[in-house]
């Protein structure tokens, strides 16, 4: 830098430097100030983000008008942490004298999500075991007849209900293992029309009955599985039955129990649970 320029700067007073600096900074800040003025007012409290409040258990206490009933445990299987809905009536609401138990173990409040007069939602607790669901509403107990399966990465047995034509869905299975008999509840939602159940070769339909629940119509079927079906199911998805309908409605599997010759149950899961066709 030339000596003259240095000298010029030396003689340039600090007052002038301060003035020029102020002017330059003002020029730079003006557009920011304009932006800040034009910005909409912040209406959200940051405090709520810093300290989020935990979601409370949803509840609408409805005084029971009769004995509690369980219509359905939906889904009838789940991993630890999965949501489960117990549909019923006269369930009251969250109360210190009411409880839900799985395999004899009470579901703690931390694992409860909702509790109303018609349904209870909970999350499968850590360390839960497969077993029956029981509710105790103000001292009145009732148990769902089906079995709830706690599944994990070792659960191999799987059922699938998939739409194959406009009016038909097919139930397939894999890893039936030593399962001899399969009990199923086919739930029909949103229609009164008839459902026709046709077993595949190697599957015997030993029993069928229907009954109505407020949430839909249940077709209970018992299937006898022969050795070939069991062997084949260990290699690929194997057809068990075809479900045909006459109207427009939703069909799902609401309960499934695969029993061995020694009457023990094999845990199973289902994807997808409902099919619309």
């Amino acid at each position, binding site marked *: 830098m030339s000596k003259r320029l*240095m000298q010029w700067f030396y003689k340039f007073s600090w007052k002038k430097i301060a003035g020029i600096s102020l002017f330059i900074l003002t020029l730079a800040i003006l557009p920011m100030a304009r932006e800040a003025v034009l910005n909409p007012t912040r209406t959200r409290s940051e405090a709520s983000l810093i300290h989020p409040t935990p979601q409370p258990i949803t509840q609408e206490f409805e005084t029971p008008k009769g004995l509690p009933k369980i219509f359905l445990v939906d*889904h009838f299987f789940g991993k630890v942490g999965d*949501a489960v809905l117990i549909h019923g009536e006269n369930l009251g609401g969250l109360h210190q004298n009411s409880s839900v138990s799985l395999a004899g173990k009470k579901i703690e409040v931390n694992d409860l999500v909702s509790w109303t007069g018609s349904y209870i939602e909970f999350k499968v607790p850590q360390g839960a075991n497969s077993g029956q669901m029981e509710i105790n509403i103000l001292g009145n107990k009732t148990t769902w007849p089906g079995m709830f399966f706690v599944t994990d990465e070792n659960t191999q047995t799987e059922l699938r209900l998939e739409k194959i034509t406009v009016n038909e869905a097919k139930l397939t299975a894999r890893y039936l293992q030593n399962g001899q008999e399969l009990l199923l509840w086919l739930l029909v939602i949103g229609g009164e029309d008839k459902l026709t159940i046709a077993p595949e070769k190697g599957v015997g339909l030993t029993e069928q009955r229907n009954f109505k629940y407020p949430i839909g119509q249940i077709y209970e079927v018992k299937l006898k599985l022969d050795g070939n079906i069991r062997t084949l199911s260990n290699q690929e998805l194997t057809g068990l039955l075809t479900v045909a309908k006459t109207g427009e409605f939703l069909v799902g599997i609401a309960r499934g129990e695969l029993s061995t010759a020694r009457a023990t149950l094999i845990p199973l899961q289902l994807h997808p649970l409902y099919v619309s066709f």
Partner: protein
Amino acid sequence: MNDEYEVGQNPAQPWKLVAGIKILVLVLVIGVAGGLFIWQRKTAQINTAQSTAGFTNLINLAANDTILTIPYQQTLYKHFGNAINPQIKIPVKTINGFKEMEFLIDSGAVVSALPQSLADELGADLTQLPRITIEGFAGQKTFAYRGDFVIKIGKEEVAIPVVFSENPDASKILGRIGFFDDFNIVFNAKTKSITISKKG
């Protein structure tokens, strides 16, 4: 006046140092002002929809890395007449590469949602995903599986939390978590477009 003499001959005045400090101060002030100006311009660019309705402009903006602008889609409702349909087509990562899918932008939805039937195509194993319940418009509970999916906004790939709904009639929705959290979504009535830009 002899400047050189006056300055140079006074040993008590380290004049070169003083001149240097003055220059440094001015350079610093200019630097700070310049930085503020550039930062302000950048912020304004991100937060402002720049489109002037021309479709070419919209395409140009769409090609930008950080901004995606989509023209309004309108539906003529029997009961309400003409209304904006905040639907956008964006590429979604599937097991066979990216595929365009149409989503409804829904600030009322906590999380993005997809029908369960798309899970296989997106490479999601529902048996491994946590199962939750979600509530629909009338408080009706539906089961869903919580996972993630990848979408492309402009040229950027973004992983967004999603639930795969068991409801076979579920719509494809872009909700708040991961989308409204991380992007500015501007409904610009003047340009009749939706602008998505990265959070500043």
